[in-house]
């Protein structure tokens, strides 16, 4: 199908983009990499009167390491592409969870254009980066004509394609604390075809205690199991509970996912299948992060 008629303006600065958004109000839509928006335009699931292209804004580019009072933070500009994330040494060193996740985001030609900020702002419940942002406790930097505000990932994702970004605002960057000593990332997803959106996925970062199944800290975030990425608190509690026996901890954490998740059923998979697959992924990712041999973990 073909997109509906619309107007188009390429902003030359962040200020100009914000002014254009202000002027055109609800009739306008931002376009970044276009890898989610253009399919929606072509299918006429979206038909804005006006497209404001933020693709040329230098203010939204670049991956930078900032030193905030001795603590390193990695700042990723909204227009950084998935391909740039995949190539970045700084991302691999300071936010390695993203390097693991990016391999699962769409296909090479889409990764060459799709942007990190677009993925966060689009907030698809099956997308990898929103789940990583939540697991890493990332902060979203959102600009309006009046100010730039910072929103924590846990307050940012509000529902299906719904975020804390208000009309007239632009997501300009995402930043996160660099990975701390002893912490390890883990990532896995199940999809019918490599590069497709996941049936179920898990992004996790944690600090395991050597030789045990116990974590000092752990953040398991599931995606494609609800209307937004979901932090599995009950499972995390068990993985951090020293009073639980080492050889039953993973199994109990898997069982606890019943409390954390209530996945929807759709033509791709039933709720029960998704819950089962979430348990399988938790077992696999935890085993990988603990560097256990294949035999030591059991699929649920």
């Amino acid at each position: 199908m073909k997109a509906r008629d619309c107007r188009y303006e390429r902003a030359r600065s962040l200020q100009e983009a914000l002014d254009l958004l202000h002027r055109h109000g609800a009739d306008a839509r931002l376009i970044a990499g276009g890898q989610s928006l253009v399919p929606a335009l072509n299918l006429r699931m979206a038909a804005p009167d006006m497209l404001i292209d933020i693709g040329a804004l230098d203010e939204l580019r670049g991956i930078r390491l900032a030193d905030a009072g001795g603590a390193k933070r990695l700042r990723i500009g909204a227009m950084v592409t998935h391909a740039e994330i995949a190539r970045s040494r700084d991302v691999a060193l300071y936010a390695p969870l993203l390097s693991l996740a990016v391999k699962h985001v769409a296909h090479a030609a889409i990764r060459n254009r799709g942007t990190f900020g677009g993925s966060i702002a689009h907030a698809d419940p099956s997308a990898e980066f929103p789940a990583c942002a939540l697991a890493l406790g990332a902060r979203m930097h959102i600009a309006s004509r009046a100010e730039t505000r910072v929103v924590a990932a846990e307050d940012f994702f509000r529902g299906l394609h719904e975020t804390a970004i208000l009309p007239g605002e632009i997501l300009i960057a995402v930043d996160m604390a660099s990975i701390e000593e002893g912490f390890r990332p883990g990532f896995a997803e199940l999809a019918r075809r490599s590069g497709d959106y996941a049936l179920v996925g898990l992004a996790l970062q944690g600090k395991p205690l050597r030789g045990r199944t116990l974590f000092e800290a752990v953040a398991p975030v599931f995606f494609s199991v609800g209307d937004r990425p979901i932090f599995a608190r009950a499972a995390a509690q068990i993985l951090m509970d020293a009073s639980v026996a080492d050889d039953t901890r993973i199994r109990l954490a898997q069982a606890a996912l019943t409390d954390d998740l209530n996945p929807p059923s759709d033509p791709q998979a039933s709720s029960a299948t998704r819950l089962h697959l979430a348990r399988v992924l938790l077992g696999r990712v935890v085993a990988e992060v603990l560097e256990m041999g294949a035999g030591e973990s059991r699929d649920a």
Partner: protein
Amino acid sequence: MLEPITITLSINGLDTVIAVEPRTHLADVLRVQLGLTGTHIGCEHGVCGACTIFLDGATVRACLVLAVQADGCFVETVEGLTEAGDPALLALQEAFCERNALQCGFCTPGMLATAIELLREGRPLSRADIRERISGNYCRCTGYQAIVDAILHAAAKLAELEMA
């Protein structure tokens, strides 16, 4: 219809000034306005890969780039890569013939673009690497096996050329 916007594209080395509607994607501009029908259109929502071309040296889905977004960019299509005698393309063309890696040919331009980008990385390739990379390109004829064979074959030929 709204006022078209005039853009400049370098298409296969030729500077082209053309008026486009903002809603029109690059694949339609290439095919309908410029007659470059080597870029195929299957799905128009990014899933099939038939429209894969090079934009500023990297592969993109031509159906997912609005032509206005590409103003000032370098476009390379299968026609241009053929004329330029791109070494990776030559190796692939021979290998695709030799290994019967196409039947109807609908997926072929997109497969070639995807494979060229992979071969240009110049690293050793396994069948799994190739399968992973072409996972975004549908072929409804060959069953993929022959395409993987051909890309492996082309990679070996290119490596030989490099050694020589």
